[in-house]
Each structure stands twice: as C-alpha cells, then as structure tokens.
C-alpha cells in the first residue's frame, strides 16, 4: 500500500545519522522530526534563524518572537542558538548542515528539482529553497510519486521552472525510495505492498530496477 505523509517522513527519518544538523522544509519534511530513530541525536536548523528547534509550544506558551521557517510557533531546545538570516544562510551555503529534506513538484533524472513556481498561477516565491538546494551536499526530496491527475512527478526532465540543477540524490515518495545516479533513477526500495510494476508504471523518468527490490522496513 502506498505510504501516507507520515510514512514518507518515517522512511526519511531512517536516513538520519547521529550528530547531523538537519534542515527540514515545510510540509512532509517537517514530520520527519517525529520519527527520529532511537540512539540518534540530531539538531534541527530553521533558516529564519534557529539551531536546536524543539516541538510546538504547549497551549498558552506560544511566543510570537519564536517561530520556524513555516512561521509556526515553536520552542527552543536546551543548547539552542538564535542568529540572523545572513548567519543562517552562511551555515547552509557553507555546507555546515548535513542533511536537507524538502518537498518538490517535480524531480528529474539528472537531479534537477522544481518546487517553487507554476507559470500562470500565483507565484509565492522561492524563500530559502534555492539556497538550500544549490548548497546542500545531501538532499532528500519528500514527495508524492504522482500528481492528483495520476501523472508522474518523477521525470526525464522538469517541465516547471527550476529551483536548482543536478542537486537531488535521493527521493522518497509514497511508493518508493529512488537514488539519482548517472542521469537515471535507481529503484532502491518499494513501499510495503507496492509492486515494482506499479512504480515502473508511475515513473516517467528512466528507472533502473534491480532483480530484487526490498520492501521498506517501517
């Protein structure tokens, strides 16, 4: 069965390594924080200016001066730090953040990503996404394999305006874990109960499928 958003987040959380600083984008990526594996310590960076982001505040304890990049009220963990936006993006651009997880509208087999603009519709802006994808050494994209019309979002080439070029190395969708290598998608894992055939059918980009494709362990 295809994963829901929490399932995708849970699978991505398995990629976390002890001691990493991690930037989680808005949407599914935010949920990753709920599934940190035991024995693993990571720190969350939010690009508006906090390292050591904690969970949402208890009701009545919200502080308007303490928010994340999604403008949500948050808390600060023990050992947290606040800083300005230039310092925040110095961390990102300077590759001090070990993992960036973000959503996408489209991903292409050359690692291109599109996630900020749909021509003809309202453009909200790229926020920090372009800085993140251009700089991060380790990007995982969290997304649905297809759009609502059932069309693949895992493409030979992006059709939407790009956010970054050649930067995505791993994609976790509701159906599969894919790696991008040598200009192709490589099927690494499939969601529990999802067939290889379904993944092939719903992937427009070139897909390398090994003889055995293990199921995700969640």
């Amino acid at each position, binding site marked *: 069965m295809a994963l829901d958003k929490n399932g995708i987040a849970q699978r991505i959380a398995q990629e976390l390594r002890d001691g990493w600083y991690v930037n989680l984008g808005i949407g599914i990526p935010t949920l990753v924080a709920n599934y940190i594996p035991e024995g693993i310590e990571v720190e969350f960076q939010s690009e508006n200016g906090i390292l050591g982001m904690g969970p949402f505040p208890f009701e009545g304890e919200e502080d308007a001066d303490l928010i994340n990049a999604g403008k949500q009220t948050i808390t600060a963990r023990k050992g947290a730090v606040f800083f300005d936006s230039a310092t925040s993006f110095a961390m990102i*651009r300077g590759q001090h953040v070990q993992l960036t997880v973000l959503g996408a509208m489209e991903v292409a087999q050359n690692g291109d990503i599109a996630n900020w603009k749909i021509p003809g519709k309202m*453009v909200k802006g*790229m926020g920090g996404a*372009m*800085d993140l994808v251009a*700089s991060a050494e380790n990007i995982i994209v969290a997304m649905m394999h297809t759009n609502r019309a059932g069309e693949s979002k895992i493409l030979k080439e992006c059709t939407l*305006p790009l956010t970054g070029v050649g930067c995505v190395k791993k994609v976790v969708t509701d159906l599969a874990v894919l790696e991008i290598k040598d200009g192709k998608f490589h099927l690494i894992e499939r969601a529990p109960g999802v067939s290889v055939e379904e993944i092939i059918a719903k992937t427009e980009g070139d897909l390398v499928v090994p003889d055995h494709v293990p199921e995700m362990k969640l």
Partner: protein
Amino acid sequence: MNKVVNNVEEALDGIKDGMTLMLGGFGLCGIPENSIAQLVKMGVKDLTCISNNAGVDDFGLGLLLQGKQIKKMISSYVGENDEFERQMLSGELEVDLIPQGSLAERCRAGGAGIPAFFTPAGYGTEVAEGKEVRIFNGKPHILESALTADYAIVKAWKGDTEGNLVFKATARNFNPMMAMAGKITIAEVEELVPAGELDPNFIHTPGIFVQRIFKGEKFEKRIEQRTVRPKV
C-alpha cells in the same frame, strides 16, 4: 552619541514618495509595527520595499499594499496575501523575487561595502538570468550585487540611547543586516535603556549602524501560524 528621537513621527521624518525602504522581519515576526503604521499615516507612495515577506492582508506590509503605497517589492516569499496577488497579477505591483539567503547576504554586502559576491544559489534557474556565471571549485556560481536603501527600518527588543540593539529569539532575522544597509537606519524598540545598560559583549547591532531610535508605543506581535501541543 544620542540617537533617540521622541516618537515615530520624528523617526520617519524625511521619507518621501519613490524612496527605497528596507523593512526587517520574517513573516510577521520582528517587523517594525509602529513604523509601518506611521508610513500608512504619512501616505508616502511609489515605495520600493525590500523585505523578506509582504505581510498579510491586514497586517505588516499588507497595510501599505492596501493603500497602494508600494510600487515594487523585493522579497523572497510573498504568499498569504490576497491583495498582493491581485496587484501583482494586474501589473500594478512590480515584484523582484530573490532567494532568501541571497537577499540576506546582499543586504549585508550593502552595509559592508562589498558591491558584489558569488553564490551558488539560483544557478540554472530564472534567478540567474542576465547574471554572470563563474565556476569555483568545479561548481557554477552567479554574481549577486549589494542592496542598500534610503531608509532601513528595523525592530529590536532592546536598544540603548547610542543606538545599540539587541534582538529576541527569531525576531532577529533580517533586522541586523538591514540596519547595516540603510543610508539612514531607524530602530523601533520595545525597551529603550540608557547607554551602558546593555552588556558590550552581547550587542547584536552596534549603534554605528543606527541613526535614529525610539520606543514603540505598542506591539501587537501577531502570530501567523499558531501551532501548539496539548499539555499532558
């Protein structure tokens, strides 16, 4: 070096139609509320506003949009604002979208006398159109230029009479860099203290970057996304 002015009217004196303003804040967090209200009152028009966001319909920079006081917005993200959308789609409002990190660094560069720098952000996208590309360490970068403003308006938690500023939590965001990049920088603060009360080791914005400082009358500090968890 006393930088104190009596009120928001004196603080914003000199801002005229057609000027370029920088306004601190991220979302509605750390925005100069009192100054924005005063800009509405002054009715200055054709402003170019450099601000990471554009507020919401009825708060923050949204108030200036309602009054059609803004000619051009330079921002990284402008969602959550219907009037913005309307003016943008109708062509009334010019919009320059800039990656957030480049926006922050371009403001800092403007304040630090660095006219241009290379960054990888935006390479290969429409942001790079017309910009110089150069490879460093095997990776393409684009040349981005400094931003400055006629007036920078920032909001701080505490400030002293010399213009030294301290920010609280994530309300710091763009305020320190914009303070550096204003030809005239105006700081509105929640608490105004005498010189010497702030620890000189822990000042975020040195007073040299601030020309005018005043205590804001009141701060609504509206929350954009109130997210909480239940008490157990």
